[in-house]
């Protein structure tokens, strides 16, 4: 039995980019709320990755790509000259989230699904629910959204998320916790249960 030929570097790179491109696009859409701009940012990130890090081991690509994508998104905000406004809004939203954190019980958002209500959703309502979830994620402060998506959607560990975001692991945990609290509260107000 002949061994399978090892994939070429281009094939490995193609497989990796194929595995992350859709999530990268959605994640960028949540941030910039513009599909065309998100596509440009994702393409720019792909080019940056292959130009600078194509010779790195494939195991390092996920974290590198997420960091490049975050930087490319920030570059887009800088080019749009709205970065100051964005971070001002972040401060406002974070303050309001902190105020209400103690009054919210996360179990309320989780126990409802155990009663079996989700199974009654049809395809249309699921699509609508998904749109509302994505809307709430897009409303999150930028750092909280980034930490939440990297940590739980991209399945990076805390250290990798901290490296991708350029912050401490404690900050990652804080951002993730606040993001979960804010999402659970917002979705519960909309009547959405998971």
């Amino acid at each position, binding site marked *: 039995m002949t061994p399978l030929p090892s994939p070429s570097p*281009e094939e490995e790179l193609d497989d990796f980019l194929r595995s992350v491109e859709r999530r990268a696009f959605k994640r960028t859409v949540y941030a910039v709320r513009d599909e065309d701009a998100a596509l440009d940012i994702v*393409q720019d990130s792909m080019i940056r990755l292959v*130009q600078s890090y194509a010779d790195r081991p494939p195991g390092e690509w996920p974290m590198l790509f997420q960091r490049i994508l975050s930087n490319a998104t920030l570059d887009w905000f800088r080019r749009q000259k709205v970065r100051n406004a964005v971070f001002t809004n972040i401060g406002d939203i974070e303050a309001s989230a902190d105020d209400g954190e103690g009054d919210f019980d996360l*179990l309320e*958002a989780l126990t409802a699904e155990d009663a079996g209500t989700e199974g009654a959703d049809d395809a249309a309502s699921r699509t609508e629910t*998904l749109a509302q979830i994505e809307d709430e994620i897009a409303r999150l402060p930028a750092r909280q959204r980034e930490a939440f998506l990297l940590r739980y959607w991209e399945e990076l560990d805390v250290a990798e998320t901290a490296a991708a975001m350029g912050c401490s692991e404690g900050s990652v945990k804080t951002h993730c916790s606040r993001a979960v609290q804010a999402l659970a509260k917002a979705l519960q107000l909309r009547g959405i249960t998971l």
Partner: protein
Amino acid sequence: MKTRPTLPLNAAQREALEARFALRLSARLDEGAQSVPHDITERLRVARQQAVEAARVARLKAAPAISVAPQGLQVGWASATAGAGRALGPWHDGAAARRSDHGRRLDDGPVSWGWRLASALPVLALVAGLWGVKFYHQLEQLEAAADVDIALLSDDLPPDAYADPGFAEFLSHDTAPATAVSALRTPDIEVAVQAPSADPMEQGTDDAAAAAAAVSP
């Protein structure tokens, strides 16, 4: 009225609850990522292909020695033709460059003089072929014109020609007999001219008889 007693959660329990909620939310987001519109997926595919192509070009630039093998270095089937490759010299360099990666690319480096000469050969062949076609056509035209002239000059002179003033003028010209002679230098051709009996053409008949005598072999 509370239906469930609220118990204080420790840090580990709270973290586990958050992770559970986040993973369920991520599962929903995965569904959304899989239902991206077709035009978006196509644009992502094109972006991915461009990135992979950029990586391939960058890799080739980083290792130019792979695409242009040094003279005498033989790989695989080329080893069987090592001697011939050395004998070909610059031709062999070009062959190695083509063989190494499915044809020549823009970043393969300078072209050897052998391949430059080889690329000029079709142009030279085309020019030579066009010149040959032009020469053949000229030859055919000359042969056709000669056939017409021979047919005209070897035919019998019709009697009406002697009633034509223009023909009389042609015969009365000093150079006309010489021209006619030079045009009818074929020994088999004989122009038979009979002298008419009419007086007005007597002078012209004499000249025609003289021309016929001169043409006869």
